[in-house]
């Protein structure tokens, strides 16, 4: 199955008044993994959509050339040829699966094999699906309910679905943002095999190390333009540092910001937060937190690593006071925190603890409200009049460099990185002004966030620790934890299994995340 060559020439895409792509030229050839890098809002996702034929182009051409003889060409505005739709499959950043269906049902959704009178022929679907899994090596339990599948499995299912429809070009939008390092590696192995088999593969990512290790061709986008697009030679992969510097400069359009490092920690710093024997049982009776213990000193940054779904989200929510069923003790500044029974209790806790939840769209932001409203969410009672509020909003926008710096803009219109700046900015700026401040808990503070925004957020986290706050960072990005944290705790099945120094290698941390304690 040789994939098509996709030639995208000088295209421009506009949504309303906003240019998403000003000028992009890229040739995607079968055989290697094409990585597309760039800051949030640089137009990476749009580029993929344009290649798949979804984006409203105002200029340029997309040419699909296939070894088997069809050459579909499409200038701006022309209808998209049917062959195009079939040949190209896109895996979106947020999965497009029906969670109540079984994996098999999702796999064939939209191109179901049918018998007489349109009856769904699931037996045939199963045979075809199994043949497909055999040839690609992608394995999914076809009978599991999709909602029960792990994130990595769901992703494999998405890829299988695309292949099932006969796609020979696969475009993936930030496929590894939700994966653990091991799952990500597995994904790239699969993609590499598909590419070697002749498929055309393009991946949008934020993670530099993935590009350095797996990509055969890299394209950098900055502010709607392709600023660099070239193959990566095996030679260069042996000296990744130089390549990394070149790519980072191309992404940023200048010198990269200094990397954050944890502030010096006094030997005799007292313990600020101590969690003992935290237990939480979910609705299905599973112990999502299972006797979790940890302690954080004043001014210390402690990182929590772990494979997705091992209790990270619940830990953050329990400390935040949003899990009423939690048992065990959380001691902050020497006093045990009382259970949260009312909103008043919650507000009291919020004066001592700043929280950033891992899912900013679900728990952090009001996408339809303005940036200004989002920046003062929950604080109206403490702000003294509209002038003070406007000043506070302006200060937070300036301090965190929210771009565009417009308080009246709808939060949903911001790029992911700037949305995250709003959420983190609100939490950190507020806690630093609070006289009872003690602790900051952050879930995935830079997930899906570009290098520049991540540097801002890391700087603010370090600044909070320097002010004497205890900081707990839960992250799937080991590089982030290694840079920021004084210590890394590994969470596995609802409890802390190991403590590691930040100098530990990915391999060591990764094995601990799988529960191999003797690693």
């Amino acid at each position, binding site marked *: 199955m040789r994939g098509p060559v996709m030639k995208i020439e000088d295209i421009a895409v506009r949504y309303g008044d906003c240019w*998403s792509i000003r000028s992009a030229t890229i040739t995607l050839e079968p055989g290697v993994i094409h990585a597309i890098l760039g*800051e949030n809002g640089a137009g990476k*996702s749009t580029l993929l*959509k344009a290649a798949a034929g979804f984006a409203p182009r105002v200029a340029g051409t997309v040419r699909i050339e296939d070894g088997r003889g069809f050459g579909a060409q499409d200038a701006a505005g022309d209808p998209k040829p049917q062959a195009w739709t079939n040949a190209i499959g896109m895996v979106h950043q947020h999965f497009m699966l029906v969670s109540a269906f079984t994996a098999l049902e999702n796999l064939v959704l939209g191109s179901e094999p049918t018998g007489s009178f349109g009856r769904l022929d699931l037996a045939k679907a199963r045979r075809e699906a199994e043949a497909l899994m055999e040839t690609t090596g992608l394995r999914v339990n076809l009978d599991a309910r999709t909602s029960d599948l792990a994130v990595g499995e769901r992703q494999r299912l998405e890829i299988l679905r695309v292949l099932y429809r006969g796609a020979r070009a696969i475009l993936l939008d930030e496929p590894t943002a939700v994966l653990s390092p091991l799952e990500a590696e597995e994904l790239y192995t699969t993609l590499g095999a598909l590419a070697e088999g002749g498929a055309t593969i393009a991946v949008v990512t934020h993670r530099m190390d993935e590009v350095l290790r797996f990509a055969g061709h890299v394209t950098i986008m900055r502010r709607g333009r392709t600023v660099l697009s070239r193959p990566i030679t095996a030679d260069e992969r042996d000296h990744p540092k130089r390549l990394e510097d070149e790519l980072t400069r191309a992404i940023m359009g200048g010198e990269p910001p200094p990397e954050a490092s944890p502030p010096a920690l006094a030997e005799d710093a007292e313990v600020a937060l101590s969690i003992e024997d935290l237990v939480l049982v979910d609705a299905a009776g599973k112990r999502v937190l299972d006797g979790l213990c940890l302690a954080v000193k004043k001014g210390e940054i402690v990182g929590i690593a772990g494979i997705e779904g091992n209790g990270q989200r619940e830990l953050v929510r329990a400390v935040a006071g949003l899990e009423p069923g939690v048992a065990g003790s959380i001691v902050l500044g020497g006093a045990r925190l009382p259970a949260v029974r009312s909103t008043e209790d919650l507000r009291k806790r919020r004066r001592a603890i700043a929280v950033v939840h891992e899912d900013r769209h679900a*728990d*952090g932001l009001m*996408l*339809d409200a303005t940036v200004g409203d989002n920046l003062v969410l929950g604080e109206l*009672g403490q702000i003294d009049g509209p002038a003070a509020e406007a000043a506070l909003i302006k200060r937070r926008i300036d301090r965190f460099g929210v771009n565009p710096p417009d308080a009246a803009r709808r939060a949903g219109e911001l790029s992911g990185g700037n949305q995250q700046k709003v959420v983190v900015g609100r939490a950190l700026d507020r806690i630093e002004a609070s006289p009872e401040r003690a602790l900051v808990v952050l879930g995935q503070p830079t997930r899906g966030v570009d290098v520049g925004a991540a540097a801002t957020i890391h700087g603010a986290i370090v600044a909070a620790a320097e002010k004497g706050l205890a900081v707990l960072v839960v992250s799937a990005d080991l590089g982030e934890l290694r840079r920021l944290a004084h210590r890394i705790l590994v969470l596995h099945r609802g409890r802390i299994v190991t403590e590691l120094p930040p100098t530990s290698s990915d391999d060591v941390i990764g094995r601990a995340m799988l529960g191999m304690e003797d690693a």
Partner: protein
Amino acid sequence: MNDKRVRALLPIVLAIAGGILIFNLIAFAFGEAPASALRLAFEGTWGTPYGLGQVLFKATPLLFTGLAFEVALRAGLFNIGAEGQLALASLVGGLVASKLPASLPMPIALPIVLATAAAVGALVAFIPAILRARRGVHEIITAIMVNRIVDAILPWTFTTVLGSNSLRTADIAPGAALPRLDRVVPSFAGSAASFAFPLAVVSVFVGMALLERSRLGREIRWVGFRAEACRAEGIDVERRLLLAMLLSGAIAALAVSSTALGYKGYYELGLGAGAGWSGIAVAMLGRGKAVGIVLAAIFLGTLEQAGLAVNARVPKEAMDVLEATLIVLVAVASRVAAKGSRAATNEGPEPEPPRDKPAPTPASEEARS
């Protein structure tokens, strides 16, 4: 900005144009020369001072119920119970007004009656509100059921408790009556427009401004945007939901000012019926702006009055059909306009994320990198 405003008004204009067309077709079907029926409808509404007064009279309760629906909608609640809230509030308000001593001056009597009605409206709204806030029972279902209960209670109260055969309360005390507008605009003479109209318009503007700027108003809107985020940041979501629904009920109840207090001078069964339903259309057509709500209420008031004006030649039912068709037209047209502006700001053709509330505003889509 200006361009945006034009785009928002366009569907209304299109709908009215479509409405005139349909009106002509209907009139023609009933054997009328289209233009003459149209002239008749115009003379009965905007063409004469009396007609204009009647339009304002018809629009007044819709202003209250439209605002009431809007307040709940901002919190993400669909207050379909305004009909029952208004009906029971009107009965109790009318009863209280009729029991007040005749000598009580207006500055005392009127607030007593309005406050009582508002309290009763809030009380009726309390049932769906508390069930939604505490137990998550969907307010549409409970509100519909409460409407039916009120429907049953009202005639029963008249016949059994009040022992009245005429299904009406006694005349209200003069202090509780709102004067007619013809006191200040003599040419309105004969029309039923009362001071309830300016009261309603002021209520809409004040209410919308409070929703936009006051702490409680903003927090109500924020809960409507994303209750989870509000809960996480220490806003009492339950209480805001409860408050929005109670306010909605109370505001809907104020429509009694234009019917029993400003027009009839007593409450009778069925007085003001339908205003609760039309309020939904008013809020939807008003598109979340005070001016929009006022215009939409006057628009629907015009339609109702036009129906009466041509009643002799074209059956009232035909006008009801026209009204319903027009509302559908505007609703469709505004969806089209909203889609156009959404495509302008968002990225792709992904499906909308599931939302647990009926979204009158363009549904949010996640802006991505």
